[in-house]
């Protein structure tokens, strides 16, 4: 019995990180630097002065 509990705990420890990879509210937003229509931008540059609305979308010239 003790062994099976240990086994579950160890398995959970290794399996959980891959499941909880998605970001959640109150997580730190991952830093990035990327090319944009206004040159290279980085999240770091906005912090301290702006909130950032980071909108992922499928493609240009598509509805919505």
């Amino acid at each position, binding site marked *: 019995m003790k062994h099976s509990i240990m086994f579950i705990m160890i398995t959970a420890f290794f399996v959980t990180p891959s499941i909880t990879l998605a970001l959640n509210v109150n997580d730190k937003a991952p830093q990035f630097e990327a090319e944009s229509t206004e040159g290279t931008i980085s999240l770091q540059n906005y912090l301290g002065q702006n909130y950032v*609305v980071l909108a992922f*979308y499928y493609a240009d010239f598509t509805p919505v």
Partner: protein
Amino acid sequence: MQAFQMDLEKFEKLDAQVVGISTDSIATHEKFSKEYDLTFPLVSDGDGSLKRLYGRGRVTYLIDKKGIIRFIQEGVPENRTLLEKLRKLQNGKQ
């Protein structure tokens, strides 16, 4: 993205910078921006690395001035909801 442009002044008044991200090239983004008079940056995530970093598909993140994610909206972004969340953040209510 056109919807964001329509309410851009409201976002800016609340100290928010709108950033759009898709896998389109900079050239396509520039054409798109010109066509719809977009005045906020569009990021080219050509290799999908940002998408992987943020781990979802069609999603909008509201990040506060300290770099903490304060709201996540899946699917089509709703300006009304996003602006409301921003107002609450500014007033320190959330």
